[in-house]
């Protein structure tokens, strides 16, 4: 059996090789990438069930007074996340192989491999030190992928890197607080110690927990920090966006589940509100607020990738809410939603990448009617948004349903209502994307040029469709392997394949799907048994048989896309006006002004610098009398 450490080193070595030697051979490096991810999936599958498998590196680090030997530990939580990372990357590699023909950055493979190495480190590490190392490596590696050598994308990638740094700094500070308090950096023992500490003196545990939570929330794009998400998604290479949305946003969730949630749900003895620690309650609300705000922002978004990025932020919001509930059901729902979201959002972004591949556009106002030319992509996208909106037969529904159940079980009625808002809003903007990209009138340019993407790129789409539908009908196929994972959160319900238990009801997904299919069959029967149809071109109907050309009616003019939800956007204009983005821009601007003023201190050759020196002297002497 190959060890986890060896896999990480292998990824780093491969990254170096591809970066140094294979810059000119994109396809070959993608094949290597694909092989590596396939191999990792294989290794991880062998590791399943072998919990508490651990290995220690032959390096000893001295950090402060803490002498440690870093190592890796196979826990269900880390296993699941890394499995999904590897599996999604594997699927994505097919897509990228087809994608990478065009003017595509050559930097992606090596940095992506670095990200994989870093994520394995983060998911399997035994101690906080390696966690930090992995965590920060993620930041710069994705910075270079997102920028991809494009000048105009550089600001967006910078905003990602900025937030990544903030997160890393908070993490370091928090980890040191832990290290100083417990004299060890082992994650699992400090969790236990922290639970005890939180039970006895919650105020001592509070700052550490707060910093950690903030650090993780930044990575998952929660409310005041969400602004990196749309920018990073927009600027990232089209085939990397699935990874950002599917995986990168989940790192924060992983962190929360790893450390914060066990402590808050088990031991925190601070003030509580509605039977829940205030700490968890606040962050639950933050999750819901995140989803509501992201939803509102998505209404008026015209860029397909930015829109989907807001959708990802909204989904991260649900997950945060669910896991902070702290109940077994909430955590299960949150986790399931996290995994489901990985699948469907990755698939959605792949279809968008397919569209980009053919049209080179992400602005939805410049598209329309592509479904007629790219049916497979359209079907994938359709199933994707059905899942993303949490509509019944798809996998998104099951996890959303569980989150509702968890919320109701804890009697958080207002949160439930807010989640309804976000969920319905999701349907709104997702339909908008569906319409603006795939339906309506097709542009004349696209009519001529666009066709379905090559088969290699269709493979992950097909698999994605099967997964979304399959897990929607039989969520048990995901829930059953998750049982050891849920056991760590104190739930030992054995799952059945197609029945999900909630707090105020249960859900038989198989039954509802069968009913749905029956309904469709009835409808189809009515449709096909009735009279024949007669196909006409779209433009014929408007002008009552006249020649559209004479009426100056063109498909381009007859696509309704711009200002789709204007009424709703208008309703929320008060909120959009005071956006967080502006606050950040303002802060950055102020920082620059201050920087210039300070520059003036150094460049100005007037002698008041010496006066400052005298001031220093005065201070030293004045210090005497303090």
């Amino acid at each position, binding site marked *: 059996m190959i060890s986890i450490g060896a896999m990480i080193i292998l990824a780093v070595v491969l990254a170096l090789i591809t970066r140094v030697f294979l810059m000119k051979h994109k396809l070959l490096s993608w094949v290597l990438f694909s092989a590596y991810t396939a191999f990792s999936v294989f290794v991880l599958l062998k590791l399943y069930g072998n919990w508490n498998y651990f290995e220690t590196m032959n*390096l*000893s*680090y*001295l*950090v*402060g*007074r803490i002498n440690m030997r870093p190592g890796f530990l196979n826990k269900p939580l880390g296993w699941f996340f890394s499995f999904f990372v590897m599996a999604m990357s594997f699927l994505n590699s097919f897509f990228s192989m087809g994608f990478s023909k065009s003017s595509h950055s050559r*930097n992606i493979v090596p940095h992506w491999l670095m990200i994989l190495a870093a994520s394995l480190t983060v998911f399997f590490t035994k101690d906080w030190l390696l966690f*930090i*190392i*992995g965590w*920060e*490596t993620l*930041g*710069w590696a994705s*910075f*270079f992928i997102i*920028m991809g*050598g*494009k*000048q105009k994308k*550089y600001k967006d*990638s*910078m905003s990602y*890197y*900025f937030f990544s*740094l*903030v997160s890393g*700094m*908070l993490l*370091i*500070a928090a980890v*040191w*607080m832990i*290290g*100083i308090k417990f004299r060890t950096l082992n994650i699992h023992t400090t969790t236990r110690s922290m639970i005890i500490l939180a039970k006895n003196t919650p105020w001592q545990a509070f700052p550490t927990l707060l910093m950690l939570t903030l650090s993780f929330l930044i990575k998952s794009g929660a409310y005041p920090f969400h602004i990196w998400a749309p920018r990073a998604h927009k600027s990232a290479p089209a085939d990397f966006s699935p990874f950002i949305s599917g995986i990168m946003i989940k790192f924060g969730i992983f962190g929360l589940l790893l450390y914060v949630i066990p402590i808050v749900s088990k031991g925190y003895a601070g003030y509580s509100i509605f039977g829940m620690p205030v700490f968890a309650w606040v962050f639950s609300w933050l999750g819901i607020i995140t989803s509501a705000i992201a939803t509102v922002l998505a209404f008026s978004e015209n860029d397909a990738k930015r829109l989907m990025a807001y959708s990802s932020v909204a989904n991260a919001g649900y997950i945060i809410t669910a896991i902070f509930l702290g109940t077994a059901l909430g955590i299960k729902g949150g986790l399931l939603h996290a995994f489901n979201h990985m699948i469907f959002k990755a698939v959605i972004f792949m279809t968008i990448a397919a569209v980009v591949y053919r049209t080179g556009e992400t602005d939805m106002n410049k598209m329309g009617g592509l479904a007629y030319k790219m049916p497979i992509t359209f079907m994938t996208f359709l199933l994707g948004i059905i899942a993303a909106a949490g509509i019944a037969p798809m996998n998104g529904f099951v996890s959303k349903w569980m989150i509702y159940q968890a919320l109701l079980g804890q009697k958080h009625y207002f949160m439930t209502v807010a989640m309804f808002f976000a969920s319905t809003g999701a349907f709104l903007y997702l339909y908008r994307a569906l319409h603006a990209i795939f339906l309506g009138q097709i542009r004349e340019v696209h009519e001529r040029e666009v066709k379905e993407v090559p088969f290699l790129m269709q493979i992950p789409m097909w698999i994605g469709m099967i997964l979304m539908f399959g897990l929607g009908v039989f969520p048990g196929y995901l829930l059953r392997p998750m049982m050891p994972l849920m056991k760590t959160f104190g739930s030992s319900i054995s799952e059945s394949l197609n029945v999900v238990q909630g707090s105020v009801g249960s859900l038989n997904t198989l039954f509802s799907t069968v009913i749905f299919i029956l309904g469709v069959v009835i409808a189809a029967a009515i449709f096909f048994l009735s009279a024949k149809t007669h196909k006409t071109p779209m433009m014929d109907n408007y002008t009552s048989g006249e020649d559209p050309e004479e009426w100056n009616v063109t498909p381009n003019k007859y696509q309704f896309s711009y200002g789709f939800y204007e009424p709703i956007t208008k309703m929320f204009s008060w909120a959009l006006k005071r956006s967080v983005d502006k606050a950040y821009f303002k802060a950055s601007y102020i*920082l*620059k002004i*201050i*920087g*210039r003023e*300070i*520059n003036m*201190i*150094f*460049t100005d*050759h007037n002698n008041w*610098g*010496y006066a*400052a*020196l005298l*001031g*220093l*002297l005065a*201070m*030293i*002497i004045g*210090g*005497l009398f*303090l």
Partner: protein
Amino acid sequence: MNTYLTLLIILPVFAAFLMYFFRKADNWVNIAIMSFVTLFGTVSSLVMLFSQGMEVVALGGWKPPYGIVLVGDQLSLIFVALIYLIAYLIAQFGGIERTKTNDHKSGALFMLLTAAAAGMILTGDLFNFFVFMELAAISSYVLIAKGGCRSSYTGALKYIFTGGLASMLMLLGIGILYNTTGTLNIAHLMVRIGLVGDSLRWLALGLVLCGILLKMEVFPFNLWVPESYKGAPAGMKIVLGSILSTVGGYALIRLYPILIQNPGLIKMLLPLALLSLILAELAAYREKHINRLLGYSSAGQMALVMLAILFGGRIGIYAAIFIVIAHAMAKAVLFFVGAHFKESTGSSMWESYRGLSKISPIGAALFTIAALSLTGIPGMMGFWGKLSMIGAGLASAKYFSIAIILIITIVEGVYFLRISGTLYQSTESDVKAKASYLLIPAVILVLIIVLVGFWPGCISKIINGGVSAAERSSEYAKLVLDYLL
């Protein structure tokens, strides 16, 4: 072994005079002399470092505390090895001699500067420290002015006046110390400093600090920094950034046992270091000229070192040494690569380096790695320094300072990666890579940076030795004084 310690100072001085006789000879002779001397220094100091002993040489046979001693313990030898390594790289691969000022004078001055820097580190006598400091200062004034442009003179003059003022204040402090304790030997001072009355001790140490803070480029002693870094010739930039500031850091670490006897002084220095950090990094955030930016960054890093020392404790000193080493290496890399870029594009504005990664991929990669190391990103050497430093701050419950440091680190990361990002943007340009030999030393240093980044264990033992040497002041004093008594 004793002679080696003396040779570390004597040999460069000798080389400087030797160069005069080869003034008509080809350039390579000078380079050969300098490289030989500095390589010898590097190797011998490393050998002494690993032989684990502590060397004390009483010059002229005068016993301490009356005579001047040279002390080569774990702490000072690390630093000597470091500055000699960097001096070697400068001498061998395109520093002083290969720039426009193509004469033996720069070489001689550079050798003097190296000798002075080594002397500052090795000496065990406060006044001797002052003398070496002035020696280093005078050579660096001239070397900066060798840049030959307007800002060279501006920078040099500003440096002279600030430096003159600071060193005179330091001399005043030394005078007071001698007057009250009757000794100038650092080891002896450690023992005797308690004898001085509170207020006078305060004043004297504050004045002595002025000189060290000048070398460490701490506000308000760093007003000369941007202009000097901008105006100095390529090699001198590295000397300023990597050697002189390193020496300043060393001096502060060495004097820490004396300073700590004035807890109030540390309290006063903390806000100063924070202010310096904030000012330097924010100024760098806005700066467009790469060398000035790196100068500001040096000032910021040295403020970090000072903070780490002020946090105190074993781990604080450990962090300080680590940051000094990481900074010296990374800054040398940045200046080497910066000089390479400057030669290639003819401009020093980093915004004009767009797309340089196509022309000089290695240069861009080296720049990025060094920048990440300075920011304290894992996988690079700087990370361990920053990590230990934050631990030190939290251990001594200086939460406010830690918050500032973390925020400033973010600013630092942003402006460094901004430059790296600019390098990796794609543009069409017909620039050709020139002076690629400047990348050789950078590669060597980056290899060290990455090696230590992934395996800090390889040097943490040595640094821990240095920490022990710095921390156990009484032992140090006893050793130095007993050595010959």
